[in-house]
């Protein structure tokens, strides 16, 4: 592509540390005019952190940003926006209750003396919409638009501020194939207009359709920048994962599917979202659920817990199991660790003890009155067994570290008759050391006979810690990897394409 000239946006030696983690260890990146630069890497490779640094949402510990060859410092996303950098996120920054035109020109409404000239506003908005090929008018309310159309509005907004560089973080995730085509047409338009585009996506198969150059991040460092024309997907996956061949360590001699089953799913069906058949979990077995965002992992787990409306046809220890609300599941010894710890797992303003005993209250009350002594003892025991680091059981749950908060959410289920634990992204936002400890804890719990289904986007944790890995794609179970046969490349292939096997796996 346009090889001559300085890059529009250049990052040099960007380093960003968080307590206990190096998120970015000196990253270089250069985006040229008319280039669609893809940024790829596994979860936790540092993509989001790099985007945050570029848009000024967080300050790097070292390194510099150059815009048109001149060093710049952004103190806030507003700074970067003024300098010509636009960001398009999955959660679009649009005011849903206002019209498209008002959104496009929100900070730059034409008019005088504070009065808005509606005619000029709508005319300018219409021009912008035409450039992105929108089929709706400037007067349309944003809340009436589909996700794909909202995305067009966001892109048009980038054009409105004469963006030089457009960052797109997973723009394709919510789109259908047809909508994706339109997005690519718009991106081509941005290229023609001389913008640089930094494109982040998990869907590797679309890189070649949209991008020209790809930079691969791994563990906060750049593995390399490649011309996509000469780079098949297989090699990109290899670069993302690292040269070392994947080893599924520690999965020897687990109570495989031969043991008694705790859960046997005939079918879990949510029309249009999820249709999973034939999942079996044995007592003491840890089963991993791999899959992209939107593959139905969360829906499957929530359905099994009775937290989402679904047709569940399953058996728990051989008895028909059809939970219609979480209370049903809890009574039968099923626990759920939800995806968002602070929003769904914890009552952050309540005490650690109150959080720990909440699901157990029905079993610790008589005529509605709680037996305080036994509850306090239970809380202390859970804090001890899970080694939750907290000054007192009365401490506010929200004051704990991420890893300890997760232990509290886990601990809620460890009283009494737990036999099946469903965990959704249990290690999100937890640092590396705490992750390993958490999985060690999960293994100890499993060894007592509890079966587990763990959904995670991070293969690095599923591979070493799970006895089996199931792959979901577009709401269906597409592949299963028994112990010892878990092959990272094959799993990633199944996750990304929904196809069963990649050539002949070695």
């Amino acid at each position, binding site marked *: 592509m346009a090889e001559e000239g300085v890059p529009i946006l250049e990052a040099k030696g960007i380093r960003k540390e968080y307590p206990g983690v190096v998120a970015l260890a000196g990253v270089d990146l250069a985006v040229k005019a008319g280039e669609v630069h893809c940024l790829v890497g596994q979860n936790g490779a540092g993509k989001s952190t790099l985007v945050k640094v570029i848009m000024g949402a967080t300050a790097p510990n070292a390194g510099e940003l150059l815009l048109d060859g001149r060093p710049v410092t952004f103190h806030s996303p507003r700074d970067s926006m003024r300098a010509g950098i636009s960001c398009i996120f999955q959660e679009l920054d649009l005011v849903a209750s206002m019209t498209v035109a008002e959104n496009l020109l929100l900070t730059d409404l034409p008019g005088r003396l504070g009065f808005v000239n509606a005619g000029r506003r709508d005319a300018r908005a219409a021009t912008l919409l035409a450039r992105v090929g929108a089929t709706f008018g400037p007067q349309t309310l944003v809340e009436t638009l589909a996700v794909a159309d909202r995305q067009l509005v966001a892109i048009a907004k980038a054009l409105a501020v004469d963006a030089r560089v457009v960052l797109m973080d997973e723009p394709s995730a919510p789109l259908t194939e047809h909508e994706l085509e339109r997005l690519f047409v718009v991106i081509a338009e941005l290229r023609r207009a001389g913008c640089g585009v930094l494109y982040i996506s998990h869907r590797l198969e679309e890189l070649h359709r949209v991008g020209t150059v790809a930079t691969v991040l791994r563990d906060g460092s750049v593995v390399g920048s490649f011309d996509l024309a000469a780079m098949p997907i297989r090699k990109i996956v290899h670069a993302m994962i690292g040269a070392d061949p994947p080893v599924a360590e520690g999965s020897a001699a687990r109570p495989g599917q031969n043991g008694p089953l705790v859960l046997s799913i005939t079918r879990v069906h949510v029309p249009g979202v999820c249709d999973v058949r034939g999942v079996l979990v044995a007592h003491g077995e840890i089963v991993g659920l791999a899959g992209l965002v939107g593959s139905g992992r969360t829906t499957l787990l929530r359905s099994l817990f009775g937290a989402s409306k679904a047709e569940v046809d399953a058996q728990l220890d051989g008895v028909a199991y059809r939970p219609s*609300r979480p*209370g049903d*599941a809890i009574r039968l010894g099923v626990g759920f660790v*939800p995806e968002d710890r602070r929003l769904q797992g914890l009552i952050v*303003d309540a005490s650690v003890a109150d959080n720990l005993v909440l*699901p157990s209250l*029905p079993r610790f009350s008589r005529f509605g009155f*709680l037996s305080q002594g036994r509850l306090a003892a239970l809380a202390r025991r859970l804090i001890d067994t899970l080694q939750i680091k907290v000054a007192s059981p*009365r401490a*506010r749950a929200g004051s704990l570290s991420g890893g300890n908060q997760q232990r509290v959410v886990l601990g809620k289920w460890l009283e009494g008759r737990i036999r099946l634990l469903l965990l959704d992204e249990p290690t999100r936002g937890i640092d590396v050391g705490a992750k390993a400890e958490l999985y060690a804890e999960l293994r100890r719990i499993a060894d007592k006979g509890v079966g587990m289904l763990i959904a995670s986007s991070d293969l690095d944790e599923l591979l070493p810690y799970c006895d089996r890995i199931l792959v979901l794609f577009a709401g269906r179970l597409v592949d299963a990897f028994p112990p010892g046969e878990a092959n990272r490349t094959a799993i990633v292939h199944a996750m990304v394409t929904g196809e069963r096997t990649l050539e002949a796996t070695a």
Partner: protein
Amino acid sequence: MSGRKDTRVGVARLPQLRAMLRPVLSRPLLAVFIIAVIVASRVSPAFLSSRNLLNLLQQSSIVGIIAMGMTFVILGAGIDLSVGSVAALSGMVVAILVTQHVPTVIAIILSLGVGAGLGLVMGSLAGFTGVPSFIITLAGLVSLRGVTYLLTDGSPVFGVPDDLRYLGAGFVGGGSGFVSQEGSIPVIGIIFIAVTVGAAVFLRMTRLGRYVYAAGGNADAARLSGVPVAPVVAFTFLVSGMLAALGGVLQTAWLDVGQPTASQGAELTAIAAVVLGGTSLFGGKGGVFGTFVAVLLLQIVSNILNLAGVSPYFQQIVTGLVLIVTVLLNWFIARRGLPMA
């Protein structure tokens, strides 16, 4: 567990003094309350007389009982604007029933049932549909007042029998009956204290009580822990409706007449008392003892101003200021006391 703040600031310095003052410093309400009592006793030596204190209790009781119900609703992250109208309606219902020679006990039970039923309906609408309780109870505020007027075409109901009057205006100990003597305690005050203690025990010691805190603290997390959130929310409104009805019944007993215009604006005083008492408007934090102290504080403030002969117009301004200052202090201490997120 309720609203207890973690005071870490400056713990290293002056540890003993800190430890001694912590119960007061971490609760601005208590500090303001103590200051108010000191000021009041300076303004008038009569303030600390047992007669005046018992008067205070008596005057606080009706709004206090309504505020107890409001505390339930707000702990569950809702708001109940209908309590004033529910109180008036129930106060009229009890008056009409007793003047039709329905036995007092049955009349009271029916009136409380009306309040509880109305609360349950509004709470169920809010809990199961997700329509903000603000809207639903605003509709209740307006329409139930209309119902109240319709009952008697707007006229008051006279002829409340003595057994009902006794609950609102009677005394025990000392002289007893309707005459207060040294050391006689108003029945209505005893009811207020009993309701407060009952509510506190309920919220602290029962499963349903803990569910109220959980549902208000984080509805999603509570649901995923097996808490039936919508029924719990509906229940808080049932309590609020029933206690508002009790307030209305006592109002009729105290005034000796069923007044359709009674308890107008009671919802705002009750909400003010709950917030002043340190219960979070976002739900899940706080408790009834804070509300109890706050109700007394509001009464003391107006009592001081009365004793000092301040115009009632100024009294309203001062009450507003006390509310704002205490809540700001609360907010300030909560922010400094909590570790940075």
